[in-house]
């Protein structure tokens, strides 16, 4: 038996000349929390709909638990989906929604299983509530209960938290992660929110324009991004285009940055790795100090160049001169 629950190989899907998925390959392990992260229009939702069976790929294959899904309609696939808008059935109450899949399977003990699923998502006692009277968070939980109650092999989640408030979203992130662990179910999670993807996932695939730019654990994606797009999308950064000779990279505006790169490259330093007045370095002018409570962003200007630092030890004010420095090992080399 295959160790992969989801196996996507060379999948292409076009809509009217535009390729929403342009050769996607990825493999998701059993019990893994896997996220597709990318901006809107990058093809992540299309890929999820291909896995669910709502669309068929133009090229490539999709396997679920080792079985090729070509020609298998959605209702014959052992995956359930949590839709972005929840897609709760308005003419059924909470229990009716959760029982929907079980009724079709003619499963035994529907009532007990519905109750158990509602307990798992923290909605015990909500059975007879009309879904239209639920808050956004409660609707989200109902959709989740409906999707997990039949025990699918893979759960697909299409930006399930994007319609909720920030504070609620943070709480539900933790809950979702805990639920996934306790169920041991494979989760394929689609989101455009990099913090969400980093915090929740075992592995993340960063998508852009129909392609996957990098796949890896959150720390790897954030700390050693493979491309400039990934570096910019999963966090903010200070970027330097230049030419390296093996010891130094020289930029067009005359900066020399210690780095072993050779040829045309882009260097990147994360703001939290930048020290302000932490020793000798680049001379700059503090332009803006953006206090954010737990952290403080310092915007500096060196010539035409805008730099951002997040240095908890810095005590500077707008208009002051400052030096900017970083450790050589915090410089990342990206292909130009």
């Amino acid at each position: 038996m295959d160790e992969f629950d989801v196996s996507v190989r060379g999948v292409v899907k076009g809509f009217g000349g535009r390729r929403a998925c342009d050769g996607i390959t990825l493999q998701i392990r059993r019990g893994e929390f896997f996220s597709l992260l990318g901006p809107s229009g990058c093809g992540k939702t299309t890929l999820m709909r291909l896995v669910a069976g709502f669309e068929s790929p133009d090229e490539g294959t999709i396997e679920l638990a080792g079985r090729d899904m070509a020609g298998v309609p959605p209702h014959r696939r052992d995956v359930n989906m949590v839709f972005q808008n929840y897609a709760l059935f308005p003419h059924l109450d909470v229990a009716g929604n959760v029982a929907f899949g079980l009724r079709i399977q003619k499963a035994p003990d529907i009532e007990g299983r519905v109750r158990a699923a509602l307990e798992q998502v923290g909605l015990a006692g909500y059975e007879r509530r009309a879904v239209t009277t639920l808050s956004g968070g409660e609707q989200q939980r109902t959709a989740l209960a409906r999707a997990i109650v039949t025990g699918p092999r893979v759960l697909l989640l299409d930006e399930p938290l994007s319609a909720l408030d920030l504070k609620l979203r943070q709480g539900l992130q933790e809950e979702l992660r805990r639920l996934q662990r306790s169920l041991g179910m494979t989760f394929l999670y689609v989101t455009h929110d990099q913090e969400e993807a980093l915090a929740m996932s075992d592995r993340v695939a960063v998508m852009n324009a129909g392609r996957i730019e990098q796949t890896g654990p959150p720390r790897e994606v954030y700390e050693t991004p493979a491309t400039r797009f990934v570096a910019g999308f999963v966090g903010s950064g200070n970027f330097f285009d230049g030419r390296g000779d093996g010891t130094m990279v020289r930029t067009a505006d005359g900066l020399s940055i210690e780095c072993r790169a050779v040829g045309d490259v882009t260097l990147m330093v994360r703001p939290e790795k930048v020290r302000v007045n932490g020793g000798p370095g680049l001379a700059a002018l503090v332009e803006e100090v953006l206090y954010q409570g737990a952290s403080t962003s310092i915007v500096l200007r060196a010539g035409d160049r805008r730099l951002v630092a997040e240095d908890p030890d810095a005590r500077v004010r707008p208009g002051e001169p400052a030096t900017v420095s970083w450790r050589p090992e915090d410089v990342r080399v990206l292909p130009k």
Partner: protein
Amino acid sequence: MRKLLGAWTGLVLVTLYVPIAVMGVFSFNASRRPRWTGFTLDWYRKTLGDHNIQDAVWKTLVLAAASTVLAVALGTAAALAARRSFPGKRLWNTLVSLPVMVPDIVMGIGLFALFHALGTGLSLATAVIAHATFNLSYVAIVVSARLQGTDRTLELAAQDLGATPWGAFRKVTFPAILPGVVSGALLAFTLSFDDFVITYFTAGTGNMTLPWKVYAMAARMGVTPEINAVSTLILGASLVLVVAALRLSRVPVTGGGR
């Protein structure tokens, strides 16, 4: 400016409701002349006891019921057919809904000419076809509106949970559009019930419906208390049907419990 609008629109309401009120009041007037002399139910008793009128009521109801069934079946099918996108969908939608705006008289004469050309003669059956033809557009429009307000992902969600496409339609989409179908049926029934012009051209003189009867009586004798009584009854029945249809069409698409 608000005062002015208020006065202006008071005038509006008077224009709108005085004729109807006058009609209703005189249908209970003891005298035949347009001067109030006392309350009576005589005119209602008299008209409802008249065999000609009973016959007209019966024919009106048969015509309305039969044409409504046909119009609902065809109109709902037309609305469902336009759900997915296909080449010519816009043209299809226009063709289905445009007849709403064909003048009655033109449609009546057109159908009359068609039946004449086909040599079918005129009967209650031809009137049923005629009424179904003009009502089908109304049903299609009402059901389409409801379908448009229905989230397509609901059907996908049902399939995702194991329902076949037909099962998903039956268990999710159909309950969602049902209020629209019922509302369209009530509307079709009302329009058929109220129609005079198209019936006149397609039913044949042996099949006078109630509005036609009223028209004929009024044309022959002017407005009599009997006519006021029948008109008031038609109006009452129409309004009940319309209010029911509006109620249903306002059931929120995303709403409703068990």
